[in-house]
């Protein structure tokens, strides 16, 4: 009785928020869907009418389409691998009691607060510049020819920059997970004769699986749409054109809003495929 009443009351009270969120999501989605069926070129003649599925076929038929998908997946996969592996290692390190723990933790988390454009520019000009960057000085110090990062190792450069930004996030979540591990479990495994690596493999890693899943899912959502890092470094050149960047080029540079919107719909589909794929692999960790 009481629960019935409070349940309907709760529904009424939640309704405005739910409606707002739904509108927030539906309006741009419908706009994108609508525009993807129009031939709309704002500075080159405006709305040129209904286009049917032409935008879709043209977008997918473009020679940049499949490479952009591959690039997107390489960047997302590379960043995920780096952030999770190093995130686990850093979290293990930060979990140890040490002098200056508080300061070190804040330092480790700091990159997350730097804006993507800023961090990408810092990396591009301070570290990866072929003549004056710190890395080129390092290479020269060892007598090697400096790497021209942005053109020769463009994909790797972007993966490094984005990983640097997202490593704190992974570390933070994994650190809290490690801290919630029951110390008696580790002691029990020690008594059971498990050496350090076995303790990591059989006790710590399974305990972290849930947190790793969460890092994987959240980062994937954000990494599929990275843009600023590419915009300020390579500008989409040297094989760094992701799906997001391709859509940007179609809409802003080519002024083909309809074509870009069709690309947006593809991006939604891609994101969903990746999401389903990830859920399948790691979903059992979230039961």
């Amino acid at each position, binding site marked *: 009785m009481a629960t019935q009443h409070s349940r309907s009351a709760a529904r009424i009270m939640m309704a405005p928020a739910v409606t707002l969120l739904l509108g927030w999501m539906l309006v741009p989605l419908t706009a994108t869907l609508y525009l993807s069926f129009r031939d709309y070129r704002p500075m080159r003649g405006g709305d040129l009418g209904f286009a049917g599925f032409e935008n879709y076929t043209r977008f997918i038929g473009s020679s940049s389409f499949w490479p952009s998908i591959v690039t997107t997946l390489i960047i997302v996969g590379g960043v995920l691998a780096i952030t999770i592996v190093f995130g686990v290692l850093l979290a293990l390190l930060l979990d140890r009691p040490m002098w200056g723990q508080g300061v070190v933790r804040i330092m480790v988390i700091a990159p997350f607060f730097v804006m993507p454009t800023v961090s990408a520019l810092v990396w591009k000009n301070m570290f990866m510049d072929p003549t004056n960057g710190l890395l080129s000085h390092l290479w020269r110090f060892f007598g090697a020819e400096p790497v021209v990062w942005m053109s020769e190792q463009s994909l790797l450069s972007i993966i490094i920059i984005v990983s640097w930004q997202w490593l704190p996030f992974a570390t933070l979540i994994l650190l809290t997970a490690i801290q919630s591990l029951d110390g*008696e479990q580790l*002691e029990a*495994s020690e*008594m*059971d004769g498990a050496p350090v690596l*076995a303790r990591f493999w*059989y006790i710590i890693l*399974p*305990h972290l699986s849930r947190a790793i899943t969460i890092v994987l899912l959240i980062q994937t959502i954000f990494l599929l749409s990275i843009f600023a890092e590419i915009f300020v470094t390579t500008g989409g050149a040297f094989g760094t054109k992701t799906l997001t960047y391709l859509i940007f080029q179609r809409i802003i540079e080519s002024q083909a809003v309809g074509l870009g919107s069709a690309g947006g719909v593809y991006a939604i589909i891609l994101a969903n495929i990746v999401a389903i794929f990830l859920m399948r692999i790691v979903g059992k960790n979230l039961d």
Partner: protein
Amino acid sequence: MGRITLDKVTKSFGDVNVIPPLDLTIEDGEFVVFVGPSGCGKSTLLRLIAGLEDVSSGQIRIDGNDATELPPAKRGLAMVFQSYALYPHMSVRKNIAFPLKMAKMDQAEIDKRVNKAAEVLNLASYIDRRPGQLSGGQRQRVAIGRAIVREPSAFLFDEPLSNLDAALRVGMRLEISELHERLKTTMIYVTHDQVEAMTMADKIVVLNAGNIEQVGSPLDLYREPRNLFVAGFIGSPKMNFIEGAEAAKHDAATIGIRPEHLDASATEGTWTGKVGVSEHLGSDTFLHVHDTGLAETITVRVNGEFGLRHGDTVYLTPQADKIHRFDAAGLRIA
């Protein structure tokens, strides 16, 4: 074999000296209980024996061999933790098999031992479940199972029953005692509950602030407590202590008399007082007697059918040969 000797073992955390030099020998096959109030160092002592803490000085010998510097896994001991410390992502079977797997035993032998442990502990019906799906008592059994498959030279129990409800605790107490009878392996058991200590132990070690107050069989400790601390800690309800003139009559600074060694009567006796709260357990009744002029409260154990009520006058007579005498330093006078 599992003979454990502690030789002048000390432990300090920074400046805090938790265990002053301590000597103790635990014979093979004994069921030894460390008992004491919380913070007395009994768990630390167990962890020192297990190797989970390093001793600050002194030596630990297991079967005559110096084990002071050995890592926990090499000491051949198994421990059951207070929180059971089961591995939550492994099934019961894998939990129990884990120490064997770590010892690189072959799979056929592992299966054999796990099945045997499952049979002994009666946990075959839930062997493929995860710890999260088990009740407290079942988890306790799994933790014991994980300890026995290794066939250790001694078992260490760290307050294993404190997370169970009262009824289950009594049951598990019996099971652990039975297990000891069957395996005849050394067991060291830490508890703050003197009832567990009395019912299970071959030998009780009473600890207070890291010091061993007394070592002996449960009945020795009950009959001849060495000092006031042991006298007050062992036995339930607690021994009554009487100081002053009444104690001086027995040439002692303090005399102690257990509630069960006082005869109560409604008509005549040595001491008089007024009945306060009476706790009825059915078989027995514990009377809390006030206004005796001896101590604030004197507890008496009387027959369950004893008729006195709150406020009634009661006469108490101590059984002369059951009076414990202690000197000014709190030590027993023989």
